[in-house]
């Protein structure tokens, strides 16, 4: 249990003692925040004392009488508001006029208590105010955390962009100064390497745009009934040239149609990322099999390769942003490190997920489970309220 500091400002001693007594064993529990709060009551008899106490330690909840001997509650409220403190104010007043209420609300009071009030009325108001205050604090904490994550993402991104940029710049300088001798083939190679690095950068920017579109929830999803087998067929055809170049056999295993309510573009992104990886991280002469199996409102995609595989430790961190497995075997392979985190985020929008089973030097099997998209889910998936379950109580 946490203790919140409640400061009561009232010139009547009886009032202050009454409040302290009423709140002595009072608890507010907020199950949604996993919090349980008690109150430590501190007292001030006038405005000067009130400010002095606040200066020493700001309270969480301020119970402020409208009429004070040395100032008015409204004036005091203005002064406190100027201090920009993280607290919530309840005004108590014997002359509960509408004007007073409006003025106090404008100055930042959260609630009103008409004098005389009963202990129950006081507790009700304190409960409401506490809940409001704590939810506000939690929202602020989450926003700060989100900013932190975004900041880290951006600094990693900047680093990932700097490496190819430096490589291309370096080659251009060498070419400009003809610093590598007279053999034109050497310069051709540098141009080729520069193009490869630029292509990698372009791919990263495109992946980044996909990721931003998914995360912001601002991209309009075009949901319709479609056959995932048909989308997979198109994806496989797209990658046949790449597969041929690596001498990798690419086959589709889909015995029956697999209907799904989905955004075609999203399903394409999932398939493209998985198939492209399965070819890139394969061995010459290896194979890639894409399997699609439908159920009622569900589809399972499996992409199996005979590639370099990975250890369990690598597999565990594979789906995070910018994670690329670095070893001797992957050194020459380009990638943004974003493809699989995109797949994971997309799958979660279909009430599904992605998993991997892998063995070094044997290959990897990526499995994506998808369920019908919910038509109302125009925004981020978590904005959709969970359906009521039977027997919830």
């Amino acid at each position, binding site marked *: 249990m946490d203790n919140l500091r409640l400061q009561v400002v009232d010139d009547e001693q009886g009032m202050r003692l009454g409040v302290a007594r009423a709140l002595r064993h009072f608890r507010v529990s907020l199950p949604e925040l996993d919090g349980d709060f008690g109150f430590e009551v501190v007292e001030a008899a006038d405005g000067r004392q009130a400010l002095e106490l606040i200066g020493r330690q700001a309270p969480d909840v301020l119970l402020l009488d409208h009429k004070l001997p040395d100032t008015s509650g409204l004036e005091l409220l203005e002064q406190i508001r100027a201090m920009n403190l993280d607290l919530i104010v309840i005004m108590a007043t014997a002359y509960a006029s509408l004007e007073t209420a409006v003025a106090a609300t404008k100055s930042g009071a959260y609630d009103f208590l008409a004098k005389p009030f009963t202990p129950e009325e006081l507790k009700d108001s304190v409960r409401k105010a506490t809940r409001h205050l704590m939810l506000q604090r939690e929202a602020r904490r989450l926003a700060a955390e989100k900013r932190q994550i975004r900041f880290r993402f951006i*600094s*990693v991104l*900047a*680093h990932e962009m*700097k*490496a190819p*940029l*430096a*490589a291309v710049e*370096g*080659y251009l300088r*060498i070419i400009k100064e003809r*610093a*590598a001798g007279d053999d034109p083939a050497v310069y051709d190679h540098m141009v080729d*390497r520069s193009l490869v*690095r630029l292509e990698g950068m372009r791919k990263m920017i495109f992946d980044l745009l996909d990721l931003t579109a998914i995360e912001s929830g601002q991209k309009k999803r075009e949901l319709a009934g479609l056959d995932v087998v048909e989308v997979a067929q198109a994806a496989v055809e797209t990658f046949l040239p790449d597969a041929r170049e690596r001498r990798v056999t690419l086959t589709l295993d889909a015995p029956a149609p697999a209907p799904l309510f989905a955004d075609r573009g999203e399903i394409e992104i999932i398939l493209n990322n998985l198939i492209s990886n399965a070819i890139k991280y394969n061995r010459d002469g290896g194979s890639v099999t894409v399997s699609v199996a439908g159920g009622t409102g569900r589809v399972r995609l499996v992409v199996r390769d005979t590639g370099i595989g990975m250890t369990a430790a690598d597999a565990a961190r594979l789906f995070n942003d910018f994670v690329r497995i*670095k*070893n*001797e075997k992957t*050194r*020459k392979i380009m990638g943004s490190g974003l493809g699989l985190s995109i797949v994971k985020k997309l799958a979660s929008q279909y009430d599904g997920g992605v998993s991997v089973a892998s063995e070094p030097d044997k290959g990897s099997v990526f499995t994506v489970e998808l369920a019908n998209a919910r038509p109302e889910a125009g925004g981020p998936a978590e904005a959709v309220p969970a359906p009521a379950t039977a027997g919830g109580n």
Partner: protein
Amino acid sequence: MSDKSSARTILVVDDDPDVVEQLTLSLAAKGYKVVAAGSQAEAEETLLGLQPDLAIFDLMMENMDSGFVLCHTVKKLYPGTPVILLTAVTAQTGVAFATQTAEARSWIKADTVLDKPARPEQIAAEVARLLRTPVAGDAHAHA
């Protein structure tokens, strides 16, 4: 141009093949003999049979601390060999470290830490400086 027999050998280790290529070119142009490796594992193997006059390591390769490990390996096998560590760690984690103090040098076993991307001429200048200075012992710290 320096005499082939007196050419000093520099070991360059980075998992970015373009960094290796460009560094090799610029150091070779200055008359050094360059031996390259593309990973911590490859470098460890190379070091068993080769004593370089200087080594340049990328920090993050197949392991987050590949460069640190290689620094220790070199200083253990060939104590007098100067080492340059290339790192982008500052940008990524906000943690900065340097080799200005003797204490830091004793912990990070590198003589110079350079932020990536570093210009080839910047690296070449550092190489020249380190090869001029006797690194054995701590003599240069009081120079």
